[in-house]
């Protein structure tokens, strides 16, 4: 009985989450200012077990070249064991590694953008990798929901 229950629950939950999965881009608006959202983002990335490998400050590069822009950064992150495993078994995914989230300010709010990693399942030759892409995608959604 309990098993049946679990199966039903799984079916329901997976149906619910299907809705947004067709999209290639995940866009999330935070009502926090850029510094607050950036802090929340990096904290949540850490809490999900990932390491931030680098923050690319695109706005600084643009400003130095004489262009006006508000804060615009790219946060790169990953788990070393997962990145190692994927680049070894599925090197064709390398151009999309490590994972990244774009974060930029819009007035007093902040926009976050990531790609839906499950779309790259077409490149993955192993089911294990597909499951991993799925989890990355779920984690990105979960990280975004932490950046209120």
């Amino acid at each position, binding site marked *: 009985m309990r098993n049946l229950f679990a199966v039903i629950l799984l079916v329901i939950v997976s149906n619910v989450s299907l809705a947004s999965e067709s999209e290639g*881009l995940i*866009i999330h*608006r935070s009502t926090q200012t850029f510094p607050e959202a950036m802090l929340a983002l990096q904290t949540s990335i850490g809490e999900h077990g990932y390491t931030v490998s680098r923050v690319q400050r*695109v706005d600084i590069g643009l400003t130095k070249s004489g*262009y006006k822009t508000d804060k615009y950064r790219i946060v790169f992150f990953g788990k*070393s064991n997962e*990145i190692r495993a994927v680049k070894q078994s599925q090197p064709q995914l*390398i151009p*999309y590694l490590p994972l990244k989230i774009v974060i930029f300010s819009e007035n007093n709010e902040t926009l976050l953008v990531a790609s839906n990693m499950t779309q790259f399942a077409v490149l993955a030759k192993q089911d294990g990798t597909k499951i991993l892409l799925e989890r990355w995608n779920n984690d990105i959604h979960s990280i975004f929901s932490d950046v209120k």
Partner: protein
Amino acid sequence: MHQQYIRAASIAGLMFALMVSALNVQAAPNGRSLYENNCSSCHGIDGKGGVGVPLSLPSFLNSVPDSYLEKTIRYGRPGRVMPPYPTLSDAQIKSIVGHLRSFADGEVPASLDVLVRGDIKRGKKLYGQNCSSCHGVNGEGGKGTGVTFSRPRDLPVIAPAINNSGFLLAATDSMIKRTLINGREGTPMISFIKAGLKEKDIDDIVSYVRSFEKATPKTNRVVSRSESPVLIYDSQSDLKTTVANLKNAAAAENFRIIRVQDLENGLVKKGTESNREVIVYFCNFETLNKVLAVDPRVGLFLPCRATVVEREGKVQVMSINPRYLSAMYNNDELDKFCDEMYEIYTNIIEEAIL
């Protein structure tokens, strides 16, 4: 024993039924949460705009009927960022429209569809004099997105594409006419009656705008989805030489090399990185500035990058495929950039692998 089992089963069945009914209640469309999940990322939680145009202005809400809003959501604006929502039910779309209406008080205009029969030729001339500076010579709209706060630009709100198939499907002649007569206070779109045009002039312009329906080229490239997400080339040289070649080839295409690093850099302890995947990051800030003005979400391409990978003595150069990625954005203007980027990437990589 047996009875106990039946009891347990029926309790479980009851719980399941309860659960399903609870879910059904949840599934009854809630305009606010549907809006927040689907629209607020672009249009703002309060409808003030962002990547999308503002939706909360009384001058907008009080001049468009529900049918215009419903159809805009259903069909989107192909090639103009605003996505279509084919999977939302009619009830869900209506509830989102209900939420949009809560942004402003005022009367909702009835869905009038009185055909306007103006002089298209004359309308074309008037359009050229009064509209094309903002909406483009062929109604293709201004460049960029919504109200974009992040960088300076000419207009505070983008002029929408009025030759767009999604717009023309949603807008009736009456709605276009009303928009030209009233304008949209709080945006650069003025009232053309106040600006001195006569009703006859406006009718002629409306008929000209309607005639875009026949002229509208099929935009929105669907081919991109058939592209591979990655470009992969075999190199003739070893890893070190290929990296050096790549740097030279990117510099020759006017890119600045911003960093060369191992893929694992920053993820593992310093000194333990594998050195068989080397990333070359390069950038051209002038192009970057332009492309961010076209679509601020484009950072997922950034910085430009090619990765040199060595496996069992074989060296390959890999990169993302800009043509594949551009399909995610529903932005025709960005597609043009991505085609250029595709050429540049392939030029650089082909140069580097010789």
